[in-house]
């Protein structure tokens, strides 16, 4: 099962390498990873998507906590949380398909951010499920390139 784990770390050089190194040396898999500074410039938040059974996820949590630079580890999977991912998708777009593509883009609350003779680039935000159904529909026209931020999350409420 996929877990979304939010890790607060010291905002220092080399910290990401430690996290990545931990995953590779202990044989854990990272499905996606997103890092950036928080409201406190001395801290970064790392959003990790990890798959594994309960035993593996428990070890991931514990091993992350063991790293000196890790301030807090939160597995958001089983608590109420908001989850988002932003994706840029470049789709083949011949003039005859334009209307149809734009219609789909609108339905998905996505946004056209670039236009050219043969392609269209769309920005879409959403959950894994929403993104997948969008990609499925766009496959008909041909997806040229995709760039994803990786999933990010925050717990709901206070």
């Amino acid at each position: 099962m996929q877990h979304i784990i939010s890790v607060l770390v010291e905002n220092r050089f080399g910290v990401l390498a430690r996290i990545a190194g931990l995953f590779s040396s202990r044989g854990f898999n990272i499905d996606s990873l997103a890092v950036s500074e928080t409201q406190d410039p001395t801290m970064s938040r790392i959003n990790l998507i990890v798959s594994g059974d309960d035993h593996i996820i428990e070890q991931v949590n514990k091993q992350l906590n063991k790293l000196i630079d890790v301030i807090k580890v939160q597995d958001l999977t089983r608590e109420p949380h908001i989850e988002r991912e932003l994706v840029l998708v470049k789709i083949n777009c011949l003039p005859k398909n334009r209307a149809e593509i734009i219609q789909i883009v609108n339905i998905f609350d996505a946004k056209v951010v670039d236009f050219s003779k043969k392609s269209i680039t769309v920005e879409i935000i959403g959950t894994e499920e929403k993104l997948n159904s969008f990609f499925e529909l766009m496959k008909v026209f041909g997806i040229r390139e995709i760039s994803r931020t990786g999933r990010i999350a925050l717990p709901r409420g206070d």
Partner: protein
Amino acid sequence: MTGAQIVIDALQKEGVDVIFGFPGGAILDVFDVLDRSPIKFILVRHEQGAAHAADGYARATGKVGVCMATSGPGATNLVTGIATAYMDSVPIVAFTGQVPTGMIGNDAFQEVAIVNITQSITKHNFLVKDVRDLPRIIKEAFYIARTGRPGPVLIDLPKDVQKSTLSDYKYPESVEIRSYKPIYDGHPLMIKKAIAAIERSERPVIYAGGGIIVSNASKELRELAERCDIPVTTTLLGLGAFPETHPLSLKMLGMHGTQYANFAINEADLLIAIGARFDDRVTGKISEFAPNAKDIIHIDIDPSAISKNVKVSIPVVGDCKRTLQKILKNIKPLKHTAWVERCKEWKKQYPLKFKDDDILRPQYVIEQVYKLTKGEAIIVTEVGQHQMWAAHYYNYTKPRTFLSSGGLGTMGYGFPAAIGAQAAFPDKMVIDIAGDGSIQMNIQELATVSSYNLPVKIVVINNHYLGMVRQWQELFYGRNYAYTCLRRRADCPPFCQGSRPECPEFIPDFVKLAEAYGVVGLRAMRKEEVVPALQKAFETPKPALVDCWVYEEENVFPMIPAGASIKQMIGGMA
């Protein structure tokens, strides 16, 4: 003050009295200051020796050991020693020189990214980029190394940081790391559950590990065992945590544990693991480990050690000593007469034994070392058969008297670690029990013991083989002794199953080699020569090596093959 001066001043404030190391270009500034300081320095002959010596010092004293090397190859030579300390939770701080910050990443002469290299084998490490961070980093390094589950910390010091000056230097008095807060006090509810489980158990066994020694909890362990009448078995790293001469001692468990310890684990209805980590050499086949235990209590300071290998029902995250003290406060005296009797019966029926004939057996040598030292020595080992015999045939009664590389299994650990222990305790008898294979991995340190007159005694259990590997070849690889014979030469026949009269001579001649270094060299070829040779070695105020030519194809028994269960245990008699 310069960065180099800060390092030496900080080390003194941390109470460091000896450093093991080897100089080089990128660490010269620190050495220049070190030379004029009261800190004792021991120049090893290979940086690996420095790391192991710092480790041996730390294990023997409980203090943080310090080693120092230059950049590049100096730093990479420390790696095996750092990994050894990491696997066995030994507090050391390693300093490495680094090329100047401006040259980092340019593939400069003797540059390696040692912080990256040691990331997965240190508890933490630092690259100092600014001299202003240096005092805090050193303070944190020592704090991290010795607290919580201890471990090695590395500080990489670029040359320009050593040279640059800090006008308002003050060594910090306290440490505050917001992301590092070890848990010392176990959860009260779990402690309550643990007490209840102990009180309702009929066949409890304590399985004690190195954590007892790390947290100085031997006294509490003994109190619990005696008050509640519970047999105690220890891991290899736990040897000395509980007196092996005690009637409740079952000695070591696991792959080469005693039969009675493994029988007890197998039948126990409660397993109390304290400061141990359910290593595969202890458990064998996990699904058949302690199959009758209704509960497993696991006391450990490292949360990640809990339920990593074996699912436990009562986890207590906390310091062993403090947790045991809390348990002792509330637990009532118990009697497990029938169970303890059963264990004693096993002890009587299945003792550790070997053929006591006219042949010079390796186990005999260890027994004589035990008798001659009256169990009062610090025993250090290399890795292999001799290590297991040293665990079997010497009774450890005090913590910090058995130093051995358990987790990483580092051949070449023992001799330099013995140097570290001897440097800490100049008046104690420190004995490295070695194999003829292992000792050659750091044999260059003969120069170190000789030049500092550190009276380390080396007892080489010489069977002309990489004995433990040969044993596996004999048992599991149809006696194909591939590359384990240390007498083997180019003109030997391709397929060899054991020595013949026409075999070439053993290389090297350890006696001559010892003498070449100014170390006393002695040899025992027959059984009756062992005691006189050992006596001579132990009496001389100088370092000495005793080369004991033992029966070549002796095996370490009992043995539970890797990944097997107690049902597959091989033999009691060697």
